[in-house]
């Protein structure tokens, strides 16, 4: 393989400086929203939209800490071929789109949904996201929706599609009152599309090259417009592929916004050779953390960006980043006799809302405290958390780190770094530690509840400050307190502020996944 390696940036890849300049010219959030970015709050969304997304973990960064979703894998067939997908590969430990361990019939799926929603009362959303394309399996997809609507009427229904068949199914989508649709749109230029999609299957014919990509983009944008006109909330997913569509995604962002998409989720390409995808095998690299953030920031003035996506499996269950699908095997569920109690679910969710309201009020009070401290310094920190907005995870137990950007404006969530896949099953601690540090080496500090001597020393050596003095405290408050102390140290000359390097979003596996 002569293609560029993970480390070598392709010459046509996005230039950070260029994007940063563009953002500076726009002066950040051009729209003047309070709290720009992915932190969906009441302030920066129309009331009607907020009402729809406030309990949806995939649409609201705030909600994903409180509410869970479930995907059912009823739709294995697909009608397009993407160079970043390989349908033959399945690993139980792997979390990425298109991966499932078993497929369900609509009847099995509906039963599983009822069982899971009865066990996890914070589950509010049932999504169908493949493993193929739900609209290439319209009968299975809509039969599942019909059964779930009948058995668990309080659940929100959600659909993720490549958009090729979307215009044909708008009436059915509205008939089943599907709340949210995600369309994966990676290009609006067929010349670029031809590099991502080798073929599509449309109207009983296989189309290839630019002609295929032209049909696909026309159908995607048409479907988006039709859904927006019917008031169905639409999110757009885009896979960032360095050297192919990275710059182009700025144009995609404008195009989908003007057609009514309300949220844009730019995800990094996953392309390990062991996944056996075309991109994985031809050495196409994924973006680095800095490249991804620069592009997300560059699009942010145009519209809301989603940054908390975990690129989950098509059969994931539970809170984002905490997959509980192993607890619900189909065999057990089919034998269960579950009573679905809407009232008790409502009661549980009312409690969540109470806690949320109290937390929001406390955060508001806190925000007024941290007025502009006069510094234009911005830096990233990583946080180990088990949820509830607290620094409450040990360094060695963390499966992912949440990354916050600290500035005079406060702590802003900008993404997360997964590490769980690379440190399981007795890999050498040394290699594992290096992988973890590589995943957060663009951060100035890492906040943890506890940390051992060895990793502490290694982090310091790598220039990342391990901070454990705020154990079990709220993330926002602690990181800002640390940031203010950091600024004091810089101002007093105790330390010198230095820019950090780049980081790997999904570090390559140390060995191929078992």
């Amino acid at each position, binding site marked *: 393989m002569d293609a560029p390696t993970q480390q070598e940036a392709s010459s046509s890849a996005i230039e950070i400086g260029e994007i940063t300049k563009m953002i500076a010219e726009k002066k950040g959030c051009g729209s003047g929203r309070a709290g720009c970015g992915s932190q969906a709050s009441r302030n920066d969304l129309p009331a009607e939209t907020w009402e729809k997304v406030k309990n949806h973990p995939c649409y609201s960064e705030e909600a994903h800490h409180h509410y869970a979703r479930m995907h059912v894998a009823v739709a*294995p*067939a*697909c*009608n397009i*071929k993407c160079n970043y997908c390989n*349908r*033959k590969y399945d690993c139980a430990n792997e979390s990425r789109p298109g991966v499932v361990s078993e*497929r369900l019939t609509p009847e099995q799926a509906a039963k599983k949904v009822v069982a899971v929603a009865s066990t996890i009362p914070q589950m509010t959303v049932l999504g169908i996201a493949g*493993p*193929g394309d739900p609209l*290439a*399996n319209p*009968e299975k997809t809509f039969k599942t929706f019909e059964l779930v609507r009948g058995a668990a009427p309080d659940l929100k229904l959600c659909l993720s599609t490549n958009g090729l068949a979307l215009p044909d199914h708008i009436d059915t989508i509205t008939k089943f009152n599907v709340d949210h649709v995600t369309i994966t749109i990676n290009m609006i230029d067929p010349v670029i599309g031809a590099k991502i999609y080798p073929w599509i*299957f449309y109207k*009983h*014919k*296989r189309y290839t090259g630019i002609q295929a990509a032209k049909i696909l983009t026309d159908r995607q944008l048409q479907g988006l417009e039709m859904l927006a006109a019917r008031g169905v909330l639409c999110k757009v997913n885009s896979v960032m592929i360095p050297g192919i569509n990275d710059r182009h995604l700025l144009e995609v962002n404008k195009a989908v916004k003007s057609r009514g998409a309300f949220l844009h989720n730019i995800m990094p390409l996953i392309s390990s050779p062991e996944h056996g995808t075309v991109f994985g095998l031809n050495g196409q690299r994924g973006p680095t953390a800095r490249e991804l953030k620069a592009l997300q920031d560059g699009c942010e003035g145009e519209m809301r960006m989603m940054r908390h996506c975990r690129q989950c499996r098509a059969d994931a269950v539970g809170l984002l980043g905490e997959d509980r699908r192993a607890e619900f095997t189909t065999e057990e569920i089919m034998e269960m006799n579950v009573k679905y109690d809407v009232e008790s679910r409502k009661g549980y969710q009312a409690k969540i809302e109470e806690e949320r309201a109290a937390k929001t009020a406390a955060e508001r009070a806190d925000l007024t405290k941290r007025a502009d401290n006069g510094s234009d310094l911005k830096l990233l920190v990583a946080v180990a958390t088990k949820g509830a907005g607290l620094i409450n995870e040990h360094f060695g137990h963390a499966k992912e780190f949440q990354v916050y950007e600290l500035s005079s404006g406060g702590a802003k969530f900008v993404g997360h770094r997964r590490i769980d896949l690379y440190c399981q099953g007795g890999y050498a601690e040394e290699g594992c530690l290096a992988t973890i540090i590589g995943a957060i080496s663009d951060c100035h500090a890492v906040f943890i509840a506890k940390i051992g001597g060895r990793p502490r020393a290694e982090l310091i050596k790598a220039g990342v400050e391990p901070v454990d003095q705020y154990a079990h405290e709220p993330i926002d408050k602690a990181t800002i307190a640390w940031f203010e102390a950091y600024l004091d140290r810089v101002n007093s000359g105790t330390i010198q502020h230095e820019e950090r390097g780049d980081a790997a979003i999904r570090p390559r596996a140390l060995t191929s996944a078992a």
Partner: protein
Amino acid sequence: MPFKIIASQCTGCSACEPECPNVAIAEKGGTFVIDPKKCTECIGHFDEPQCVAVCPVDNTCVIDTSLARYQEPA
């Protein structure tokens, strides 16, 4: 000659099954098989064999050269 599905290549995704105009494709133990008696290579229905056109794995739906060409039942 009818098409056949190479079982070791088939991912069992089911994309081919609803596309077959002759209802010649069915699941068998997680993968799909074509009934050679029903397969007409889509002649008279479509320009190209539908199972070949929709299958996500290349060279999985192939002509079964060991069998005779399709003939209308007498």
